[in-house]
């Protein structure tokens, strides 16, 4: 058996996931898990698939490498295929009790996201999800973080001084507040 992690990036068009999964099925592959995102005209996905004995990485790269970025175009999609030999992390079940949303608002400038994510790294925060949007001429970044490894009071202190020095505003709130106000049965 060959267990692989496969990542794809291309222009967004109808049918990419269909093309990818058809070729995987054609090789006898079983897709265990898949996640995809689109961003302003571009598409990316990451998936885990296991193939029967006899299928090789080269074969897989060859098959998937034929998929075109746009129908009829020459350019192919960007492709990464890697064998998975290590133990996979368990499926995430219930949310941890220490999930927070860090909302950062600041003028659109080089390095804002780098500053904030560096602070997350220094404080052992795992970023579970991240999204950005422009709102009233400001750049808003929402980070959904798991804070169970980090003492939060130190994180807050760091954010307070960084926000003053680097010119952004932030809020750091337990995820339950957002679930309570927008989910029934939360």
């Amino acid at each position: 058996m060959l267990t692989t992690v496969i990542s794809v990036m291309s222009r967004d068009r109808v049918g990419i996931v269909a093309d990818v999964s058809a070729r995987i099925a054609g090789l006898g592959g079983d897709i265990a898990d898949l996640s995809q995102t689109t961003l302003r005209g571009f598409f990316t996905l990451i998936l885990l698939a296991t193939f029967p004995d006899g299928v090789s990485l080269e074969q897989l790269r060859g098959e998937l490498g034929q998929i075109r970025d746009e129908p009829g175009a020459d350019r192919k999609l960007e492709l990464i295929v890697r064998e998975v030999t290590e133990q996979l992390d368990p499926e995430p079940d219930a949310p941890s009790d220490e999930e927070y949303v860090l909302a950062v608002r600041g003028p659109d400038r080089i390095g804002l996201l780098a500053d904030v994510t560096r602070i997350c790294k220094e404080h052992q925060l795992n970023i579970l999800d991240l999204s950005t949007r422009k709102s009233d001429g400001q750049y808003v970044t929402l980070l959904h973080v798991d804070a169970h490894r980090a003492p939060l009071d130190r994180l807050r202190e760091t954010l307070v001084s960084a926000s003053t020095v680097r010119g952004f505003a932030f809020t750091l709130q337990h995820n339950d507040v957002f679930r309570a106000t927008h989910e029934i049965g939360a």
Partner: protein
Amino acid sequence: MVRSDQILSTVAMIQEEKLDVRAVTLGISLLECRGASPRATADAVRARLEQVAGRLVEVCDAASERFGVPITNTRLAVTPVAHIAAGFSADDFVLLAHALDDAAGALGVDLLGGYSANLENGMSRAGDAWIESLPEALSSTQRVCASAQVGTTRHGLNMDAVVRIAEAIVRTAERTADTGGFAAAKFVVFMNQPDDNPFMAGAIHGVGQPDAVVNIGVSGPGVIARAIERRLAASPVPRLQDLAEEIKRTSFRVTRTGELIGRFVAEQLELPFGNVDLSLAPTPDVGDSVGEIIRLLGVDAIGAPGSTAIVAMLNDAVKKGGAFASSSVGGLSGAFLPVCEDQELARAAADGSLTLEKLEAMTAVCSVGLDMIAIPGDTDAATLTGIIADELAIGLINNKTTAVRAIPVPGKAAGDYVAFGGLFGESVIMPVRNTGKSSRFAAFGGKIPAPLHSLRN
């Protein structure tokens, strides 16, 4: 992750629209504290409060930080003291008031409610002593709030109590003439008083409650006002029921925040969670006004025709949204109209659009009553008796809570100005019409009997 636009709307509710938990009120029973003497009772009361509520402020600070929602006040509510001080003299009652005040100070809470008595079906010796103690108790303490239930739909309206309490209010205000009669702002008289309301000055820990309980008062008039504005600006043009729906949904979100925080605080203190009171309680801050909501819903001046209907719709929509949001809704749970504490209500009172009579009408359809009304210092006690009786009769017949918190401001007349400061706010002195004409009514005393529909069995 919850959708990013939803996250941003919750953040905006808190950061910009002034959503907060207005009060976390820990209700504590004092029934075990009666000792062999007033001094022993006062000591036991103080010890009990400090033991049960020792971590309240610290836990509330942690909750506030964790969820990013301000908790504006931490408070205590106790068993109405007349129940544990029956047999005490008025001076002994005052001793108890000081013990409560000292405990509240030591614990770092801003107000403590429950310097109270049940007088709904007649006077008692304990009630007499308690009323006699009121002026001294309220003027010599900082944090103690007092209240009385002088009637219920079940029993009728105890006019003997109303007369005596009106006199006590006047005396209490006179004792604190240098602060505009402020001591009277810490006292409310009720018909059908809820025994689990987290808001002051009427919070008590009723006799049927468990030993200790955590009650939450949320608030968010600003959130509701901004939601209405957004709906008015969106298409299609809303009709009244569409606005009611918008209020209901927003009230849901506001109440959910309170429920979340209340349960966390209760869990951390290892105490039962009582209820969420989802009232719209304004503060003097700009953007935190119930008056503004009334204006947005269609009247150019608060008090203009339409105002009562608007308040009726608002009060009902708030309850509906909140009821779905919490497993346990209680207290007053409606729209408050405290004139001094609401910038726009105070302004409407000052320019004459909002009169005492119109307020009385509006209170028939909202949740509290004539609240934080500053009246001329020379208002005679019989007139004050009549004002109280009128407001409480609305509650008596309609089987709801109504109350009066009126402050006769010594030395000031209608049109003058008084400022109490902080959450207690400021306002013009409202004119009281037809003064001096209610003495014969007040002189009768006795009781207004319970209405026919109290015979429910």
